[in-house]
């Protein structure tokens, strides 16, 4: 009997909730748990959460404090590893004549592991942890602002005011003018591509015909459904970086890692559509005007220093390559790629439109974003998040646009062609991995060392494992 009552009560609650759209706090979900959800889940959940403003503010403060503590902790760890490293090296110098083979090997291993640990602690403190918290804070903002935003959107749709939004003329895609002069970008883009090739910045192109054909077909299909007025030149790069980027004038580069990471055609299409939108918006061109050609290709970003020189004796390079942190997304100038907060939002909105117009489920893009923020952790995703910074406005921009678009049935989520591409890709990946193993090395790492012990992090782990403080309630 009590169970039946409970069931009735529950079903009542569930039935009432969406109608009321009001704040009936779900006691089963704490704010911390909510922030562990994906972006799409949060769009559904947020309106029913009803956390108070003071609760949210307190949590934000808590997150910011946790971030600072966590970053400090890893900066201190890096410093401490560095001290131990110098001690070990001093010991090696002092005792070198008297060491037996076993002692020497132990000391060599200790030095090698300390170098690795210092490198990784620095990478986490400077890049991975800040990105992870950016995502958390974006989600918190979503919990805070989405319910009101949703009401506004619904009201706009009801009043049919959404047609008046910027680029609201989605039935005219292909005939409208986002920003005139796309043709003028071809020369500049071509120059940049040539320059990059000459400097050896481009990873090798993929030559698997099945993969190349599929990705080209998909990209051309989206381009045909977009506002692009220049021919689209698709290049697939055989690199494990999870990213894609567009250069002005119709040049799109899609990396193998992205094809490996995408789970559905819609996700892949979402990213491609976003990149095409950077071209139709001429974002790269507009930011490039400020830069000199030398500055265009390379961002003298700190991350590049970390990854390329790797500090002591280049061991970092060796280590970084193993983890696949390194990639174009980390060194290319954001101006060249047209990355800025405003341009990202614009590209998100237009990208959603292009995918939709091509008959593909536009939710793929936000899904892929969530995927990067969770499954791939923040280390494998460093390149992605550098060129696609996570912040609340862009998530909302995409979501709002999806709601404003006229409903379409049979939007494609995935296809057998996509699955076939994935199968063909497996061979490419295997070959590339075997090739990487054959990479000769001048550094001759010390063999048979115990695994380095700290930091407690593997690529792909959620960042919470590193900073347990963020799981505590304020």
């Amino acid at each position, binding site marked *: 009997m009590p169970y039946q009552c409970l069931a009735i009560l529950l079903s009542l609650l569930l039935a009432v909730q969406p109608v009321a759209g009001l704040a009936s706090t779900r006691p089963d979900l704490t704010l911390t748990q909510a922030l562990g959800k994906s972006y799409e889940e949060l769009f559904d959940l947020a309106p029913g959460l009803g956390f108070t403003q003071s609760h949210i503010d307190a949590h934000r403060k808590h997150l910011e404090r946790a971030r600072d503590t966590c970053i400090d902790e890893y900066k201190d760890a890096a410093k401490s590893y560095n001290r131990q490293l110098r001690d070990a090296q001093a010991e090696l110098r002092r005792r070198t004549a008297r060491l037996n083979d076993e002692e020497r090997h132990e000391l060599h291993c200790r030095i090698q592991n300390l170098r690795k640990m210092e490198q990784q602690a620095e990478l986490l403190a400077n890049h991975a942890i800040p990105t992870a918290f950016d995502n958390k804070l974006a989600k918190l903002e979503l919990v805070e602002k989405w319910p009101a935003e949703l009401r506004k959107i619904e009201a706009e749709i009801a009043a049919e005011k959404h047609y008046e939004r910027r680029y609201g003329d989605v039935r005219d895609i292909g005939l409208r003018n986002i920003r005139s002069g796309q043709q003028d970008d071809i020369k500049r883009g071509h120059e940049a591509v040539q320059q990059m090739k*000459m*400097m*050896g*910045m481009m*990873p*090798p192109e993929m030559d698997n015909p099945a993969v190349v054909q599929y990705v080209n077909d998909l990209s051309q299909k989206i381009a045909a459904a977009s506002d692009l007025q220049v021919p689209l030149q698709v290049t697939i790069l055989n690199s494990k970086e999870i990213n894609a980027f567009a250069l002005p004038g119709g040049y799109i580069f899609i990396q193998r890692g992205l094809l490996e990471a995408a789970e559905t055609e819609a996700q892949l299409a979402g990213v491609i559509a976003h990149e095409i939108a950077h071209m139709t918006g001429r974002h790269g061109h507009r930011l490039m005007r400020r830069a000199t050609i030398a500055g265009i290709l*390379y961002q003298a970003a700190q991350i*590049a*220093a970390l990854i*390329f*020189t790797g500090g002591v*004796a*280049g061991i970092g*390079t*060796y280590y970084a390559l193993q983890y696949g942190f390194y990639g174009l997304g980390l*060194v290319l100038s954001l101006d060249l790629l047209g990355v800025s907060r405003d341009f990202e939002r614009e590209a998100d909105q237009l990208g959603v439109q292009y995918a939709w117009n091509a008959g593909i489920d536009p939710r793929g893009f936000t899904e892929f974003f969530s995927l990067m923020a969770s499954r791939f952790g923040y280390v494998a995703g460093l390149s992605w998040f550098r060129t696609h910074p996570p912040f609340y406005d862009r998530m909302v921009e995409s979501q709002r646009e999806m709601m404003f678009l006229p409903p379409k049935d049979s939007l494609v989520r995935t296809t057998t062609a996509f699955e076939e591409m994935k199968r063909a890709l497996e061979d490419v990946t295997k070959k590339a991995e075997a090739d990487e193993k054959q*990479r*000769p*090395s*001048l*550094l*001759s790492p010390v063999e048979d060392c115990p695994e380095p012990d700290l930091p407690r992090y593997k690529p792909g782990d959620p960042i919470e494992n590193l900073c347990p403080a963020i799981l505590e309630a304020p």
Partner: protein
Amino acid sequence: MIRILIWILLAILLLPTPLMPIEPLVERSVYLTVEDGDRLIGGLTEENFRVSENGESRDFRLEEPELPVMITLLVEHSRMAAWYWDDITQSLSSFVRSAPDGHWYSLVTYAQTIEVASDFTRNRAEILDAWNRLGQPMWREVNTYDAIYETAEKLQLIGGRHVVVLIGSGIDTFSRRTLGEAQRKVEATGATIFGIGAGSALRGRLEMYLGTNARMELLRAQAFLQMLADKTGGQAFFPRFVTAFPNVMRSVLLMVGHQYRLIYDSQPRLDRPFQVLEVEAFVIEDDRRKDFTVRVRDGWREE
């Protein structure tokens, strides 16, 4: 007992050389380029070559060169290099611009010691990037002999086809190894070495201001780079103008791209540490033999 052993030992040592056992046949692989004036000659076949070792003719065959090539840029990064900094940066950047995709490239810098600035990579841009991030040179010493010795030692551990492009003055200030030790190391390694003599201003417009000692120093440095090239089938370049470096680097890459791989049956003589190798290349035109210049290592040293 000991006396018998000594007698046996003496007997062995006193045996006349012709009776010394000759090593069983081993196959040796060498890389070489063939030139006619300033033209590189490609497309030759086995009929166009003759190979001799220690003055005796040897059987050989041509094979496809191994790919990818492992190319190590060994670059001076000392305080002294301030005198010829432009030469070094020009060489490096034009090399990176002209180098083809698909090979492995690494950057090793030297002054007091060697540093692996960039381990082998397919991404040539990493080489420039690593160089740009090195910052100001810290050391006054330029230990070129040590640098070549230690680099060769590292390369010996990695199999395959190696090319070293040494960019620097060639001057040595304070190496632990002697010139002779560096030379013997190079003779024992299979890498082809190209020497790019930095210091064009010192050979060009500043030459007349140099004192006798400086002039001698420079000549010694040039001779060292020349020796490295002659020993290994490479080439040494000493441009007099900084503007010549892009062409020089293109020539180096062109030569690497036109190397023949020749495998011959070696029968080293155990009574000498160094086995002399000679390769001739020629064509028969109108019943007359036309000879080409062959750039090939001048022999091998067993370590």
